[in-house]
């Protein structure tokens, strides 16, 4: 009888855990693209998301024009390891300054360790139910013309902030056109079958 009850409990555990996994499917990486557009729009600036072709090899690039500025700034979405750092060097012109924003912090340089530690801290808080952010592994690199450095006004951390304990702030924006800047190709996924 005891053995039968144990087997029933184990079967119940199997069903419960799998059902939990299925119910929580889709709650993985938060998409902060729309939130970034909203933050820029809140300043009264124009924002446009580059097409996938124009943004390549980056997963996403948003161009913005601050009021009073003659040139666009850009927000690049990059992985925490900064594997596409060489492409940033090519994409961002010498007349531009840049900095990195990720969750609650900003860096003037590509501080991989600092980014990973920030991820670890916020991920731990989030797992314990104490976090303010929907933690993903995407950092923002903000580039803007040296002659018009105004993006510091924007609280970029709000892109990850949970407004109601759920997903970060979102809206929708139509993609805009753009051009392919380089003929450098990204070498992507390749695995043994």
């Amino acid at each position, binding site marked *: 009888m*005891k*053995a*039968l009850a*144990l*087997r029933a*409990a*184990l079967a119940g*555990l*199997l069903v*419960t*855990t*799998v059902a*939990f*996994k*299925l119910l*929580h*499917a*889709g*709650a*993985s990486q938060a998409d902060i693209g729309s939130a970034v557009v909203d933050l820029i729009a809140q300043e009264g600036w124009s924002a446009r998301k580059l097409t996938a072709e124009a943004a390549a*090899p980056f997963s996403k690039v948003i161009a913005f024009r601050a009021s009073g500025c003659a040139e666009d700034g850009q927000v690049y979405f990059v*992985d*925490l*390891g*900064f*594997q*596409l*750092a*060489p*492409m940033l060097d090519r994409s961002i012109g010498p007349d531009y300054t840049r900095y990195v924003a990720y969750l609650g912090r900003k860096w003037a340089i590509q501080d*991989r360790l600092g980014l*990973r530690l920030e991820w670890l801290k916020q991920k731990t808080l989030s*797992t314990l139910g104490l976090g303010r952010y929907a933690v993903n*592994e995407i950092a923002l690199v903000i580039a803007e013309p040296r002659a018009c450095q105004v993006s510091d006004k924007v609280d970029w951390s709000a892109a990850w902030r949970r407004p109601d304990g759920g997903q970060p702030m979102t809206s929708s924006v139509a993609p805009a056109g753009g051009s392919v800047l380089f*003929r*450098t*190709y*990204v*070498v*992507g*996924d*390749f*695995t*043994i*079958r």
Partner: protein
Amino acid sequence: MASAHDLISEDFRRSLSGRAALVQRELFLWLALILFANQLFSSSTDVVGVFGEQIVQILLSRSIFYYLGWYVVFSQLAASKAGRTVSRFDIAAVFSVALLNLVPGQGSTWLATTAAALLLYARSQNDTNLRAASVVLFALALNGFWGTKLFDAFAYLLVHVDAALVGLALAFTQPGMEWQGTIVGQPNGHSLIIFGPCSSFHNISLGLLCWVSITKITRPTWIRSDFAVALIICAVVIFLNTSRLYLMALSEDHYAYWHTGPGEQIMASIMTVSVLLISLWGAFRRGARR
């Protein structure tokens, strides 16, 4: 190699029928089943389509070596001599590990797998089959989770190593080619930036999973020369991966063929067969079997 029927002992078949008391072996098999099911369905976030298609996509999203690993885990557990009636500690430990799957996030299933491997190892005593199952569980967790985390931490460095290998090969054989950081190719023409998913690292961990699985199914105990076989697998995977990157760097046509065209399938097949054959050779070579 023993057949599946031989591996499943009589008392295990009796326990499956529900008549016998629950023994350690069956308890650990339940745990393995819970982990396997959770791993499969934790990958369902990227899957779209109707239910039947989703199941097929989930099954096809995994490497053949992943299933080989799980086959070895189940067969080694079934062949285990852990026939003692379960203790309260066993029950509490198995339930605790299984309940880790209820922690949100995809990593929880892999944490549970790692904890299960530790549990099996701790309870294995002189049971080589139970120990073999725990080693393969470790290899699965390394490939599915820890390897990725390790790679993320050192991605920049590891991708540079791949780029250096390709860059050196290009510099020696193709005039006008050079490499700078993670970019290889012609300075003012066709060039590649090598990105994490294409690094040799991921296929190395998958190759090692194949090696561990095949070695453990043929004999539960290690011998010293097994580790030389592992090194050969790493070298072959790096060589083939570098060769593919080299070919892609030659021109745009080469890139299209070897990146997403038939060349990708050809290279993946060559790598799969190579890893499989080396693992089989390592397991069955003269003097290796016991």
